[in-house]
């Protein structure tokens, strides 16, 4: 079904366009449908264009090399995503999956760029801003993961006990750890693997052994220092 001009005009990107330009977008726009959990776009792939949600919800997230995910945005009806690579010419900075059956409009990159083609100054400025946004998204996702690693390190330092007859041994599930540090199970699992890789803990079956408490302490202190003004 063709997209309505009114819908296009309701989008902040297109609100001030001349009728001709809106018509060009209307002609070029693609309507795509996705099932729940289906990928809409993949991080690192070439950019196809700018997406706008018609209905449903799209979860936009970044993945780190270790496989951790950080949700940047849940885009609902009328919201756009994948704006950055349209303008900085890089690959998709994040992946997107449908949280529910969703319909999404794709404004091809060429069409979106054509809207600013006759104003090179604006295009230059947008490029710089887009590149900065791309970098910030990476910084935010790094920082938020580091804060979970640091909070888990603190929790383990507080809880770990030496095994002695009569000393009760604290037991927590990963969900319970997540609740204590204000995170989710998935991220806690990755934080534990990070601590294990750093040589601070060893996970042996049901047992988490803090082998290098001073390494945990260092992680906590480094993170605290990095937050000082």
């Amino acid at each position, binding site marked *: 079904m063709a997209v309505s001009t009114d819908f296009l005009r309701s989008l902040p990107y297109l609100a001030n366009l001349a009728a001709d330009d809106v018509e060009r977008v209307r002609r070029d726009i693609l309507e795509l449908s996705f099932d729940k959990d289906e990928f809409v776009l993949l991080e690192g792939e070439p950019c196809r264009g700018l997406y706008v949600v018609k209905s449903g919800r799209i979860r936009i997230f970044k993945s780190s090399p270790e496989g951790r995910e950080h949700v940047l945005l849940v885009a609902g009806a009328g919201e756009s995503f994948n704006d950055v690579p349209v303008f900085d010419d890089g690959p998709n900075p994040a992946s997107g999956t449908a949280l529910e059956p969703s319909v999404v409009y794709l404004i091809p990159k060429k069409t979106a760029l054509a809207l600013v083609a006759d104003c090179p100054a604006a295009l230059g400025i947008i490029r710089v801003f887009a590149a900065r946004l791309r970098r910030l998204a990476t910084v935010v996702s790094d920082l938020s993961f580091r804060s979970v690693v640091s909070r888990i390190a603190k929790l*383990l330092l507080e*809880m*770990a*006990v*030496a*095994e002695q007859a009569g000393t009760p*041994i*604290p*037991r*927590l*599930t*990963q*969900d*319970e*750890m997540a609740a204590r540090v204000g995170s989710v*199970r998935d991220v806690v*699992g990755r934080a534990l693997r990070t601590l294990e890789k750093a*040589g601070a803990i*060893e*996970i*042996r*079956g*049901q*047992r*988490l*052994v*803090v*082998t*290098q*408490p001073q390494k945990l302490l260092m992680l906590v202190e480094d993170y605290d220092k990095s937050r000082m003004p």
Partner: protein
Amino acid sequence: MVMKASGGEHRARCCVAIPEIDTSKCISCGNCVEECPVGIVTLVDGKAVITNPEACSYCTECESFCPSAAIRCPIEIVLGAPES
């Protein structure tokens, strides 16, 4: 042989740890059966049961896919020397 894991009553604490299953919370969805990488969870009378505790690697996959928190894989947090 089928061993019930509920309450951990069959668990020798020093040797094999297996997830704890609260059968009263189990809604028979079968997620744990499907997700266990070593295939040792089955449904008996509509309740999850671990059939071969020795094979459990305590990977916690069953816990992560249980929608009703019927399976728990608590982790003991201790201080100790590196293994190697």
